[in-house]
């Protein structure tokens, strides 16, 4: 076989490898066309063009499949992720959050490197990202099969925060940390976002008690930033789905916040953890803007999910409010910048909170799943087709 022809066949093999399994016939189709073209140069050009357009779309789709799997979706859901199917990240809130965490985490690593942080800090953030992804995969699957047990889990989580206030590591009048293997872990950052989003989605008496316990624990620690995040999340959830239990939890949260603010002492800013946004702008305006963009990226699962999924708007709202207020607090005060600054607790907490969001947004009842996707592909070359 002549070199160009051989190369064209190789490109077709690459195309087949890049496509999700249900779309592989299209690589076979392209290969048959290449075989039908007499001119070798023309055949190679056809193969390369197809790889560039279809192959890249296939790779993006396979990455989405992986993120959907990490999000804890079952095989049936994963099978829907194919070209021509549900192949948009915004239809999969947890998967979108996985991409957001990885993207913001990468920006964070760039910031830490540019700011001269020790290499150990970068390694810890990467390790936390891997642990968080594994935790999301496990918790996401557990929740889909053992939803009924989440009430007792919520209570235990609330009590854990109390335990931290009583037996945790203290610094400057605050007791928010646990020391695990030489690392300082902030359990409120790991637990609280997950608890708030879970409560926003499914409110029970036990869940309300757990939220009030968490609010009291944050007041005792004291942790005004997380206490504020709790209030923001509960307020968003109540505004989007008002009910008595939501109001009780919010009142508990506000009382806890009041105490936390009164008791808290000003802590000095920790390099690479606090004041990340200001520090990034001081290093370079472009880095500052990138960090700012990364903070917005972290909020996309809540914003886009809320726009598309009317059934769980309270959960998306709570997710956006918890992380939005945490990021806002970090921007204006000496508080940790989640996922971007140094610190594994927030990275794990962000990924765990994704597990409390629905795995996918709904499509119109009775509509064919393929027809429900009506937006252009990421290459922006395709039509807008919609289900009627």
């Amino acid at each position, binding site marked *: 076989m002549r070199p160009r022809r051989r190369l064209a066949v190789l490109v077709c093999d690459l195309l087949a490898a890049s496509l999700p399994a249900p779309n592989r016939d*299209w690589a076979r189709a392209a290969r048959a*066309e290449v075989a039908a073209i007499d001119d070798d140069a023309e055949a190679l050009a056809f193969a390369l063009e*197809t790889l*560039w357009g*279809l192959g890249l779309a296939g790779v993006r789709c396979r990455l989405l499949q992986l993120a959907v799997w990490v999000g804890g979706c079952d095989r049936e859901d994963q099978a829907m992720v194919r070209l021509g199917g549900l192949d948009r990240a915004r239809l999969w809130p947890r998967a979108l959050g996985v991409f957001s965490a990885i993207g913001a985490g990468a920006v964070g690593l760039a910031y830490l490197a540019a700011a001269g942080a020790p290499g150990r800090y970068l390694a810890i953030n990467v390790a936390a990202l891997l642990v968080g992804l594994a935790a999301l995969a496990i918790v996401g699957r557990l929740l889909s099969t053992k939803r009924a047990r989440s009430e007792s889990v919520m209570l235990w989580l609330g009590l854990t925060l109390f335990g931290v206030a009583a037996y945790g590591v203290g610094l400057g009048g605050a007791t928010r940390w646990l020391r695990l293997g030489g690392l300082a872990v902030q359990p409120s950052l790991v637990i609280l976002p997950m608890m708030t989003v879970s409560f926003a989605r499914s409110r029970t008496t036990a869940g309300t008690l757990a939220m009030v316990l968490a609010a009291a624990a944050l007041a005792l620690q004291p942790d005004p930033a997380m206490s504020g995040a709790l209030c923001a999340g509960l307020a968003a959830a109540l505004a989007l789905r008002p009910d008595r239990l939501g109001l009780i939890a919010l009142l508990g949260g506000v009382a806890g916040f009041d105490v936390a603010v009164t008791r808290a002492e000003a802590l000095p800013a920790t390099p690479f953890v606090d004041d990340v946004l200001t520090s990034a702008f001081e290093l370079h305006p472009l880095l500052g803007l990138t960090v700012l963009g990364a903070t917005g990226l972290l909020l996309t699962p809540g914003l886009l999910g809320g726009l598309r999924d009317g059934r769980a708007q309270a959960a998306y709202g709570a997710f956006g409010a918890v992380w939005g207020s945490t990021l806002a607090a970090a921007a204006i005060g000496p508080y940790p910048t989640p996922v971007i600054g140094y610190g594994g607790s927030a990275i794990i907490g962000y990924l765990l909170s994704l597990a409390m969001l629905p795995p996918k947004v709904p499509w119109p009842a009775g509509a064919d799943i393929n*027809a429900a996707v*009506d937006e252009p*592909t990421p*290459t922006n070359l395709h039509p807008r*087709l919609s289900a009627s």
Partner: protein
Amino acid sequence: MARARSLSTHARTVLAALLEAGGAWSHGYDLARRAGIKSGTLYPLLIRLESQGYLEAEWQQPAEGGKPPRHAYRLTDEGLRLARDNPVQAAPLPSLAQASES
């Protein structure tokens, strides 16, 4: 069933090329040439059209031996309606004869 809302120029061009073929089957390479678009644009579009029921596809044995079966496409009734409702707004497509001469 699905209907058109706001089709891209590429989608309209491909639909027009398929419409012009009438009920005849088209192959990817010929279709790309007739529509004047890259194959990397054409195939994702064909996948979407097929998954939404506008296009039917089948494997056809080649006339000459030694070549693999080719994937061929034509519009379904829904696809024909979609193509008629969304004509190309720019310059007309080259005819099948012109395309084969070029």
